C-alpha cells in the first residue's frame, strides 16, 4: 500500500477507530495504541484485502478485538488488586459520558458510523449520506433511532 493512500486512510478513520478502541479501554493512551495497531494491520493486509470497501468494517473489528484483548490482559495483570479505573466511582459527567459511549458501542455498525459522523465530525445529512453510502432520508431515520436509544438509556439511568 502506498504511503499516501495509507495516510489518507488513517486521517479518515482515526477518530472513529480511536472511538471504538476508547469505548472499550477508557484509556486514551491504550486506545491510541490499539488504534495504531489496527491501522498497521490494515496496512499489512491491504494488498491481500479482497474488498477494499470493507476496510472500514475490518478496521473497526480489529480495533475492537485489540481493545478487548487489552482489557483482558489488563484484568490478568491486575486480577482484583488495583481496581479498574472504570470501576472506581467516576464523576457524574464522566459517568454519563460512559453511558453514551456504551450506547455507541452497542449500536449497529452503520448507526454508529452515522452517529460519529454527525456528532464528532458535525457533517450535514447530505455529507453523511455520501460518506456512509446511504440516503439523506435513511440518515435522518437512523439518527432519530440513535437519539431515541440514547434518551432511553439515559432515562433508564435516571429512573434506576
Amino acid at each position, binding site marked *: 500500500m502506498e*504511503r499516501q493512500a495509507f495516510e489518507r486512510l*488513517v486521517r479518515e478513520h482515526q477518530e472513529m477507530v480511536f472511538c471504538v478502541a476508547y469505548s472499550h479501554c477508557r484509556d*486514551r493512551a491504550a486506545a*491510541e495504541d490499539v488504534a*495504531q495497531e489496527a491501522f498497521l494491520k490494515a496496512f499489512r493486509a491491504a494488498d491481500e484485502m479482497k474488498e477494499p470497501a470493507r476496510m472500514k468494517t475490518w478496521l473497526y473489528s480489529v480495533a475492537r478485538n485489540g481493545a478487548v484483548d487489552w482489557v483482558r490482559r489488563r484484568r490478568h495483570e491486575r486480577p482484583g488488586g488495583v481496581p479498574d479505573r472504570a470501576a472506581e466511582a467516576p464523576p457524574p459527567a464522566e459517568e454519563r459520558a*460512559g453511558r453514551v459511549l456504551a450506547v455507541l458501542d452497542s449500536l449497529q455498525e452503520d448507526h454508529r458510523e452515522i452517529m460519529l459522523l454527525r456528532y464528532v465530525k458535525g457533517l450535514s445529512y447530505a455529507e453523511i449520506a455520501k460518506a456512509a453510502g446511504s440516503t439523506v432520508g435513511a440518515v*435522518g431515520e437512523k*439518527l432519530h433511532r440513535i437519539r431515541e436509544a440514547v434518551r432511553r438509556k439515559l432515562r433508564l439511568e435516571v429512573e434506576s
Partner: protein
Amino acid sequence: MSCDELRPKLSWYLDGELPQAELEAVREHLAACRACAAEVAELRACDEEIGAALEGVRPSRGFAAKVVAASGARRPRWVFRLAAAAAALILCLAGGSSLYVNSLEASPLQVLLHGTERFHADSMGALRVFVRNGQSRLPIASASVRILLAGREVGSWRTGPAGTIDGGFRVPDVADGTWPLAVEVDSPVGKDVIRRSVTVTREVRLLVTTDKPVYQPGQTVRLRALALNAFTLKPRAGDAVFEVHDSKGNRILREPAKLSEFGIGSLELPLADEVNLGTWRVRVDASGVVQERAIEVAKYALPKFKVDLELDRPSYRPGDAVKGTVRAAYFFGKTVRGRVLARVGAETLTGELREDGSWEFQAPAPAAEGLIKVEATVTDTADHRETKATGAHVSRESFRVTLYPEGGQIARGLENAFYLIAAYPDGRPAKAEIALEVNGAALTMTTDELGVARMAVKAPYLIRLDRARDAAGSETRVLRDLRESSSSTDLLVRLDKASYRAGETMSVEVLSTAPGPVYLDVVKGGQLLLTRVLDGAKTEIDLPPDLFGTIQLLAYRDAGAAPAVRVAHVGVPEGLSIRPRAAKEAFRPGEEMPVEFEVVDKDGKPVQAALGISVVDEALFGLVESKIASEKAWLSLAPELLDTRGFLQADPRAIFGGPNADAQRFVSANARARALPRLAETPWAARLAALRERVRSFNERFLTLAKASAVIVVLGLLVALFGAPLLDLLRRVRDSQFSGMLVLFLGVLSIGSLLIGSVLGFHGVVFIFSALLVAFLAHGVYSTGWWFLRGNAAAGLGSLVLGFAALLFAAQFTVGRSVGDSLLPLDAPAAAPEKGAGFEARMREIRRYRSEERLESSPRSEAPGPSIVAGAPRAEAAPVMKETGGAREPARVREWFPETLFWQPQLITDEKGRARLTLPAADSITSWRLMADAIARSGALGSQQARLRVFQDFFVDIDFPVALTKGDRVHVPVAVYNYLPEPQSVAVRVERQPWFELLDGERKTVALKAGEVGVAYFGLRVRESGRKALTVHAEGKTADAIRRTVEVFEKGREVPISVSERIRGRKAFAFEIPANAIEGASVVFARIAPPKGDLLEGLEGMVRLPGG
C-alpha cells in the same frame, strides 16, 4: 400538523435539516403543543450529552503521522521487489540447471562398424554398419546412416529390421593415401558419428610380355609392360622402370619409361653378338610393384617342321599297353612325309609317316614303377630331323577316394553336402563303386564320369570307407578326408554354382541351425564389396560388372563372430573381341600383307582400344613350347588360386575332376577366411562413464554451493529475527494465509515426486515434478521477499527454508539416478520389426533391375569368331616361269628370315575400333603367329591369335647347323620342296664364295614328284670364320633362290684377357695378344659403367655367380 406527524421529523428539526416550509409548520406546532416542545427539549439535552461524551474522544494531534511512520511505508519499495525477483531468478536458474544436468542421459545408441581398412580407389566398396541399443543390444531399425569417405558422401541408407544397412557404394577416385571415413547415424535414440581413417590404394597389376621367349645374340628383345589397377583392371598410366639382367646377373639396362593412358610401356633392347647365354631376367617396376619375366638367350637353329606326340593316357599300370600318336607338319602347313623312330622306355619302334603325316604306335609299359620317357624322332624326305619327347607315369597304385565337404567347412547340426571324389594318381577321374558306412548305416554310391558322387550327411558325422572298386576291378580302402578340423560353424553357405560371370545373379542359400537374421558379406581382395541381411534362407546377389575375381562370402549371426565362408569365382566380364582380317589366306615371300583389326566389346559395339601386336615365326614356338597363360585367368584369380585351373570351369564338380591338390588348395583358401575386422564402434561405455562423472561433479559443486548459501540465508534470517519471541513467530506463521498453503503444496510435491521417482524410476516424471517444484519455489521466494519487505519476515522464513530443503532434496534425489539408468523404453517402438517403405522400395528396385537385365540379355547375339578372310583369288599358285626358250628371269634371292616379323606395343585404334597394318612378308616360308591383345580405357581386355601363312609352291631351303667350325668338312643339305601339281626335275646350284671351297660339283639335280620334298647335299670345306652367307639357286619349272647365314667359329681355344680401370677423359689400354693367336679372331669388348653403378653391378654379378 399533528403530534404523530411531527415526531419522525424531530431529528431533522434538531439538526436543522428541515426545509423552510416544514420548518415553519414545525415551529407553529411546537408553539402550540407543550408535550412536543418538552420532547424537543429532552432531545436537545440528549444531544448535548452525546456531544459532551464524544467531545474528548479524539486521538491526540499527530496520531495519524505517528501511525504512518510506524508502518515504515516511507522506504522506496522497488529495490526490495527487485531483490526478491533476483533471488527468485537465481533460484530458478540454479534449480533448473541442476535438473537439466541431472536429466542428461547418455544415448543408448551404439554403432558398430565392421569392414576392411583398405579401399581401392574408384571401385565398389561396402561397410557393415550395425546400429543397436547398447543397453538392450536390440537392433534399431529406420535409423539413417550416412557414409562419408574422403569428405564426400558416398551414400545414405536407412537401417532395416536387423539394424544394418544393405548396400555398397562407389569408393571415390581420390589419390592414394590415408583418408577420413565418417559414418553418421541418426536414430530415434540419438545421434552418433564414428570417425576413423582408411587407406585408399591403387594396387597395380603388371603384365610383362616379350615378343618371343627365346633370343639369339644379335637379335632384339622387345618388351612390353601393361599396368592395370589390380582391383578394377582399368589401365593405369604412370611411370615404370625397365631393367634387364643377363644370365650372370649383370644389369644390362635400366631405363625409365612412361606408361601410356592405356597402361602400356615398351622398350627394345638389341642384343650384342657376344653376350652371356642363358636365362636373362626382365624386371619392370611400376609404383613399387615389380614383375619379372625370364627370357632365354641361346644359339639355335629353327626347326623345319613340328612334331606332336600324344599318349592315350597320362599314366599306366605296369604291363599296360602304351598307345601313342605322332604327327608332323611343316610350319607352312603341309604334312611331312618320312620315317619315325619312337622309344617307349627301353622299347624302340620304327615306321613311316602316313599320308596325313601321322603314325600310331603301341608298346608295353615297363614292369617297374616310375616315370617313363616317350620320344619320337621324325626324319623327313629332306633328311631333316626333329624330335619330340613326353613322359608318363607308371604306377601300381590304384585310384584314391577323397571326401570333400562343400565349402571346405563342416556346419554343425545341418545337412552338409559331401563330395566323394574318385581319381587316379594322375588326376584322371575314376568311375567307381564306393561302399561306405555313414553314421553306422551302410551306403553304396557310384561316381559319375567326373569321378564325383554327392551325398548329404548331417554333422557331426562318422564316415568310414568299406571298399571302393573301379571298373577295372582295382580296389582301395583309403579315404582322404579334406575337412579342416579347425573350421566348423553352425552356418552353411551354399551357392548354386562355384563359378559365375560378372553380370549374372548368384543365388546364395544360408543354412542355419538357429533362427534370426544372418549377415552376409561379400569380400574381394580384402575389401568389403556388398553387405546383405538374410531374413530367410535364400538371397540373390546380382553380380555387378566390376565384381570379378575370387570373392569370399562370409555369413555370420553376431558381429565379430567367426563366419562361415564360401569362396566363389566370378569370371572377368566379357572383354573385347579382336577381329583380325588379312587380305589373303596366304602370301608370297616379300609381298605386302595388309591386316585390318576391329575391336568390339562384348555387345559387338566397336570400341577404341590399344592393341599390342607381335608377329613371330611359328617355328619358334615349335622350338620352345611357350606357356602362354590365359591373361584373363591370371588377372582375375587370387594368388592362392592362381594355379587352380579346374576352378575356372563352370560346373562346381569340375573342381574336383582335376588333381586333388586343387581341392586341397580350395579348402585351405576357405579356411583362411576370417571375420571382418571391427573398424570402430561407439565408445558407449566410456561415453556413459564420462557423462556420469560430469553430472556427479556438477552435483557435488552444486550441493556445496547450495549448502553454503542455505547456511548463509538461515544465519542471516536468524540474526534478523534475533530476539523475537518464538511463540509470536509461530503465531504469525500460522496467521499467514499463504505460507501454510505453500508449505503444504511443496511437501506434497516433494513426497509425490520421491515416491513416483523411486518406485518407477521414471526419470521423465521426476523431471516434470521437479520442474513444477522449482516453479512454485521460485514464486514462494518472490512472495517471501515481499512479506519480508512488509515486515512479516517470519512468514516467509518458513517457506524459504522449506523451499531450500526441497530443492536440495530434489537435487540429491536425482544424483546418480538419472544418468543412463533410465528404464524408460525409449527405443522400444524402434526395435519392433517393421518393413518400412524403404525396404519395399528397395526390393522393387531390385526386381526391376533384374527384369531389365533379362530384357537386355535376350537379344544379345553371339559374336562371330575372328577369321582371316581369304582374298578373292587364291594367290597360292606361284607365277609359273615360262620356259619359252630365251633368258629366264633370275629368281629373287630370299635372304630375310627374321624370327619376329613385326612388333607394335601400342597400336591405338580409331574411335570405331579399327586399325590397319601393312606388314612386309619376310622371305621365310612359314606361318606367322600374329598375337594381338587389346585393352580399352574401361579396362576391358581381349586377346586373339591368328596365322599369316607365307607360301610358294616351289622353294629351296638350306638346312644349316647352329654353327660351323673353321676347317670343317660338311655336307650341307639343301631341301627342295615341290608342291606343284606335277613332277619336275630341279637344278640346284651353289654360288661360290671365298669362305669355303666346294668338295664336289656346284650344280646338282633333284627329281621330284608332285608334293615331294627332296634334298641335295653340297660338300664344303670351311676356310674362314665369322658370320658367312651361302646362296643357293634352284630351277625347275619355276625358280627360287635362298641365302642363309651361319656362324663359323675359329678352330682354337678362347683366351680371355680382361682389364678394368677407372677412366677419366682419355685413357689408353694396352692388351698383349698372344703370338700364336689366330689371325683375325681377336675381338675387344669395352664396357663402360658409371662410377657408382659399376661397384653395385659387379657385386650383383659376384653374388649371383655360383660360388660367389
